[in-house]
């Protein structure tokens, strides 16, 4: 590599900005996925949203994607490559893409970046994330009402704030619905391993759980529940409608489409600005999948009312009085949790018996 090459590399960004600015070109939108688009869960939903963007804008957009991108060095190259090919807006859809996204964004100041679930921004990098814990509250309520053994099983992935938040939210609302409820939690240490998830579900069922909540992405727990016969499950990330109406009685759906369409529009209009959003049920990023008839109508109405109260902002899933597991005070009567606490949540609420690993 000689001086000329160096100059060329340095000049790439500026050279491209002019090329991309040409009028009438379709807006080019890139997507970096951590898994295969056929995973039926996390990446599948992001890709569905990509297709929704294509449908909404027709000829005015061109979308490109790269699937199964490992986090780390390969991600940086994949993102750079999209920027080089003239993408105007790039969505990087996994937490592990945070540093690579920032690195590339510094080199391409004219390209806009949207990083999912991260916490660092730049003038041309936004972050977006969903308040899944709102959906968990609805699930928790239904779960508390549906359980007869008073044991709810929870398949968790990794002990990170996102997952811990979900457990707490589900637990608080399950206890509210049914004060005798207990949670059994299994950490699977994977987002996606169908065989292991099936084993985890079976283990929970065998230990008396008759409701299973999951924070892993495959439908394996549903199949295990179906086999057991009388166990309730909830769809995760996508609707998992093939297990309707029972065992799957409802679901949390990640619906990225409205946000993606919105942000592409902003780039087209030249109104895009860096922001940090955390959208919930209200904005449509968190959707509650159909509550089936397997749920008593009364419970269904309560669940829908809970959902409405969160959508309208009149109720926050973490409203005091709440204590931490160790008995120390957390939220006073009527106080709601700050986003900052929620984002770094590393404790269980009072009543949960297990310990968070590490």
């Amino acid at each position, binding site marked *: *590599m000689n001086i000329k*090459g160096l100059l060329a590399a340095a000049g790439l960004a500026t050279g491209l900005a002019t090329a991309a600015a040409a009028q009438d070109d379709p807006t080019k939108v890139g997507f970096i996925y951590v898994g295969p688009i056929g995973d039926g869960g996390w990446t599948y939903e992001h890709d569905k949203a990509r297709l929704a963007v294509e449908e909404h804008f027709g000829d005015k957009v061109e979308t*490109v994607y790269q*699937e199964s991108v490992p986090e780390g*060095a390969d991600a940086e190259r*994949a993102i*750079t490559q999209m920027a080089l090919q003239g993408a105007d807006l790039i969505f990087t859809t996994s937490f592990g893409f945070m*540093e690579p996204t920032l690195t590339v964004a510094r080199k391409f100041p004219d390209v806009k970046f949207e990083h999912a679930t991260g916490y660092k921004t730049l003038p041309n990098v936004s972050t977006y994330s969903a308040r899944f814990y709102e959906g968990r509250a609805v699930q928790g309520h239904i779960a508390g009402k549906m359980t007869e053994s008073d044991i709810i099983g929870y398949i968790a992935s990794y002990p990170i704030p996102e997952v811990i938040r979900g457990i707490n939210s589900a637990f608080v609302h399950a206890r509210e619905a049914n004060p005798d409820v207990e949670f059994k939690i299994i950490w699977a240490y994977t987002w996606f391993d169908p065989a292991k998830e099936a084993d985890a579900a079976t283990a929970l069922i065998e230990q008396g759980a008759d409701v299973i909540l999951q924070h892993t992405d495959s439908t394996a727990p549903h199949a295990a529940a179906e086999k057991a016969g009388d166990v309730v499950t909830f769809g995760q990330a996508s609707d998992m409608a093939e297990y309707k109406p029972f065992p799957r009685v409802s679901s949390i759906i990640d619906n990225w489409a409205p946000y993606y369409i919105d942000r592409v529009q902003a780039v087209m209009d030249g109104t895009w600005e860096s922001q940090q959003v955390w959208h919930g049920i209200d904005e449509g990023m968190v959707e509650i999948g159909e509550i089936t008839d397997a749920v008593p109508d009364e419970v269904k109405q309560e669940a829908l009312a809970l959902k409405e109260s969160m959508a309208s902002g009149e109720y926050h899933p973490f409203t005091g009085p709440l204590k931490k597991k160790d008995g120390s005070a957390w939220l006073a009567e009527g106080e709601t949790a700050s986003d900052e606490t929620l984002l770094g949540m590393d404790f269980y609420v009072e009543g949960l018996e297990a310990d968070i690993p590490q």
Partner: protein
Amino acid sequence: MLRLERRPQPSRLWTWLAPLLAVLATMVAGGLLFALLGKNPYEAVATIFWEPLFGEFASYYRPQLLVKGAPLVLIGIGLGLGFRAGIWNIGAEGQYIVGALTGAGVGLAVYPLDAWFVFPLMVIAGALGGWAWAMIPALLKVRFGTNEILVSLMLVYVAEELLAAMALGPMKNPEGMGFPGSRNLQQYPAAHNAEILTGTGMHWGVVAALIAVIFAYVLLGRHILGYHIRLSGQAPRAARFAGVRPARLVLTCLGISGALAGLAGMFEVSGPAGQVSIDFNVGYGFTAIIVAFLGRLHPAGIALAGLLMALTYIGGEIAQSNLGLPAAAIQMFQGMLLFFLLAVDLFTNFRVRLRKTEVA
């Protein structure tokens, strides 16, 4: 009927011709696959092989070839030495992980100390980590006669669990909002394996790979140890008479390959990857085995094979995002390339003769 006849010596002509033939065959077969998927086969194959080298943005991709190829070459060189001597270390992936852990561990332990010796210390720790991990199968083989293929493979799984434990536990970034993964070493200048010349992709791992290639070349050609390695592979019994001590050779070969794999892991974690994370390893240790064979266990060949693999990775990524080819198609394409390369090797070592069947 066709008969194979072993050549007294590998054919020089075929040594060069075979890889070319394999690449051509892959282009044809791969083109067919892409056509089946409804893509323009010519465009797809051209994107994979041409775009990274001479395309519009080659000035970005060419350095990336070095970044992607360096760990493959570094590990492949070490493995090649062992394979030549008939010592089968297939657990380089594990040694790569442990090297990254020990290397990064030193850096993270002294954080935020800003001193010139931090990085060299990490390099030494990385090499030692990989070496130590490889010493387990080596010592077990020497002491108990256990099979090193299997022990080194088992240790890959152990290393992967260790990596997960570290990323979630002791090495977790205290300022990382509770997410798994260590501090980012790219933001810790004293520990960062930065590019030596900006924009060239030349980080210390690339330099190390280059040194390793030269070192292996000289070793095999000029040094008594290299002679012992070659002799043990070709004629183990003769080697004993020539004074080769098998135990020492096992320790040396596994040690060298482990240390090189550990170095590769360390350079990767402190450079391109930046942090210890649960899925830090992406299979370089296994791919390097294939690279070693594609390079015919010859240092120069391994260097070329590493770059060829890097080319298909990077070209494949471009084809994915430009042409919308699924990642799976690229994976199959790489698989085909390996099949063909392995298959044509036949012509290097054997002569195909048309002969009447002899009744045995």
